[in-house]
């Protein structure tokens, strides 16, 4: 009896250590989005049940903080297993070889090519490097103009017909909708999506024929005339010009949901609908809002809408192979619910299947987004895109807020971006 008992104890202990060895904890860092948190927490539960020995720890941070958190964690070689950011922020991780390539087997695909085939052509290119694929898209987003019909009707405009199609019209309509006390704007028409200039304003320059970087990647700020026109436009928009808006007012898209008669239009993506629905269901259901395409300058050289950007789920290459496998398996599991991401969170996964589905086509105004996306291109991503964006921000803010002349601002911008390119 005693011997049996000892053997039993030994086996029990052995099994426990074996289980302990099989216990894998996956850390998963992402940005906050209450709608997405809800469904992903459920996926975690389901995945843990189906894969005993795996625990997944999900942590959210503000989108302004996650970039810093990931950076410091990786700098100490302590990054999480799974994370996502906008591709411009993620690119440095790819180039510095911090990531694990997509394990297509764990993700449930027969081959790497099958992964590419499942997605719309081109969307996986930004995450491809030296022949390897390093991320799977969580969302591909572009921005269009949401407008509040009540604001239009309030000033005698018909939203269906009079919505602004050019930037010049945008100025006129915003002027009509604006309500001021002295200099202070109580209600704005449209206001820009400061400080996301790479996505929202570089296309405006491209409409005028300019470029951020030349095609060969060597020269910064191409076509001075286009850039000057653009900077002059922003100066006119701001407090020292027509005073239609400024970066120091509350973000337009955050006010829009509240329907508080303080903003007429904002620039944002399909996901905004989910937020309107949860923040203000009455407004959502009232139908007093609509979406129209990104305006184009009257004498534009090219028809370019706002750039689209993507968030890709990526896996840490410094973690053990076992972790990487499980991580990709989990990522694929989450991403196998594109319709739920669409209906509950309003984010679009650019899979062929989803884009052709009824669900997608039946989302309000999805065709506006699709049309614009088809015309557009991905946002500039490169190792130094954050720094370049901050230089653009400086240029725009200096002409809008600091009284710097567009010519001087352009000179500074050119010099600084060129320096970034040259330093590499």
């Amino acid at each position, binding site marked *: 009896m005693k011997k049996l008992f000892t053997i039993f104890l030994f086996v029990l202990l052995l099994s426990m250590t074996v289980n302990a060895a099989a216990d894998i904890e996956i850390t998963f860092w992402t940005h906050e989005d209450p709608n997405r948190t809800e469904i992903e927490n459920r996926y975690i539960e389901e995945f843990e049940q189906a894969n005993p020995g795996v625990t997944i720890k999900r942590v959210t941070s503000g989108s*302004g903080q996650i*970039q*810093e958190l990931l*950076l*410091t964690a*990786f*700098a100490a070689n302590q990054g999480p297993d799974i994370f996502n950011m906008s591709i411009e922020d993620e690119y*440095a*991780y790819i180039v*510095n*070889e*911090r990531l694990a390539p997509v394990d297509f087997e764990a993700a449930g695909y027969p081959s790497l090519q099958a992964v590419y085939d499942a997605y719309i052509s081109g969307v996986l290119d930004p995450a491809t490097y030296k022949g390897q694929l390093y991320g799977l898209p969580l969302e591909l987003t572009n921005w269009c103009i949401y407008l509040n019909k009540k604001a239009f009707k309030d000033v005698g405009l018909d939203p269906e017909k009079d919505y602004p199609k050019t930037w010049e019209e945008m100025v006129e309509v915003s002027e009509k909708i604006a309500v*001021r*006390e*002295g*200099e*202070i*704007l*109580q209600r704005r028409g449209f206001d820009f999506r*400061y*400080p996301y200039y790479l996505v929202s304003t570089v296309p405006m320059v491209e409409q005028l024929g300019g470029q951020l970087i030349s095609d060969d990647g060597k020269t910064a700020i191409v076509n001075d005339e286009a850039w000057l026109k653009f900077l002059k436009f922003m100066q006119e928009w701001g*407090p020292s010009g027509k005073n239609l808006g*400024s*970066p*120091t*007012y*509350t*973000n337009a898209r955050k006010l829009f949901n509240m329907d508080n008669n303080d903003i007429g239009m904002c620039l944002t993506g399909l996901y905004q609908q989910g937020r309107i629905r949860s923040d203000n269901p009455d407004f959502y259901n009232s139908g007093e809002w609509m979406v129209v395409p990104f305006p184009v300058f009257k004498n534009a050289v090219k028809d370019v809408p706002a750039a689209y950007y993507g968030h890709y789920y990526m896996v840490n290459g410094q973690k053990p192979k076992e972790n990487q496998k499980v991580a990709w398996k989990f990522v694929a599991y989450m991403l196998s619910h594109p319709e739920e991401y669409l209906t509950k969170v309003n984010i679009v996964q650019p899979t062929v299947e989803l884009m052709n589905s009824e669900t997608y086509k039946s989302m309000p105004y999805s065709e506006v987004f699709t049309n614009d996306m088809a015309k557009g291109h991905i946002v500039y991503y490169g190792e*130094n895109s*954050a*720094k370049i964006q*901050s230089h653009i*921000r*400086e240029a725009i*803010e*200096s002409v*809008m*807020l*600091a*009284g710097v002349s567009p010519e001087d601002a352009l000179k500074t911008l050119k010099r*600084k971006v060129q320096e970034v390119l040259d330093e590499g």
Partner: protein
Amino acid sequence: MSKRIPTYNIERKKARWGWIFVAPTLIFFSLFSFYPIFNALYTSLFKKKLLSLKPPDFIGLSNYIYLLKSPDFWNSMRATVVFTLGTFVPLLIFSLIFAIFIMSRKRFQNFFQIAYYSPAVLSSVVAAVIWLIIFDPRGLGNQWLNLIMNTPGIDHKWLANSVMVQMSTMLVYFWKYVGYFTIIFIVGLASIPHSIYEAAKIDGANDWKNFWYITLPLLKPTTILVSIISMLQCLRTFSTQYLFTQGGAPLAPINVITLNIYYTAIRDHRIGRASAMSIILFVIMLLFTWVQFKSSRADEISY
């Protein structure tokens, strides 16, 4: 001979105890202050990018040379100097005035001290959030200033105009710390024994002479203390500028050195250059303090 040995032993024993008392703190500073600053000095001699797994390139003093020639760096110096002078001078003057006024009152001394000090109790993040709303074009900032200056409807662009945004950061800092330094001055004032004033009264001095020839000179150590601490604090300011830029304010006018260091490291990943900037800031702070100490021997004062 036999008299000397015991005292010598006691002195040695005391000296050893001195080291023992100081040791834990020294060990801590070695690990958490000295090692990191030397590490930063070392890093500043390299071209290092935070995410790169490759070994960094040794470039000697190139980071420093680059910084000393960089308009962006000099802008940060300007922003820091402007902020420091613009804040610590009013802080010094007003906290002294408040201290004197409060001490001249017979009642409500405690009330005023508590009231003036209360903002220092709030966290900087809380303060920034409150003031961001006050400085909103529709907020209290415009309302009050327009009321006082009788200019209805004017947007003073607290966070938009490059001059105003600097003043806004100074105002927030001043608001937060004036009470703190007022109390320090009050402590200094209180430590001046009444006997001196009584003696002066017998000699026929009036209030103004009292202030100028007795109070101010005897307050010198306190004043130096306040200057140094407030100046060092101002040179290290970070949260207010960081949170304001996160809230939409332009970066360039308030890109103080600490903020620049932060963004150079965290946004641009250039840890080598950021370390060089930190060393420069460190040297500046050392210099300022040394100059202040030299130009007036602080420490103890006897009556």
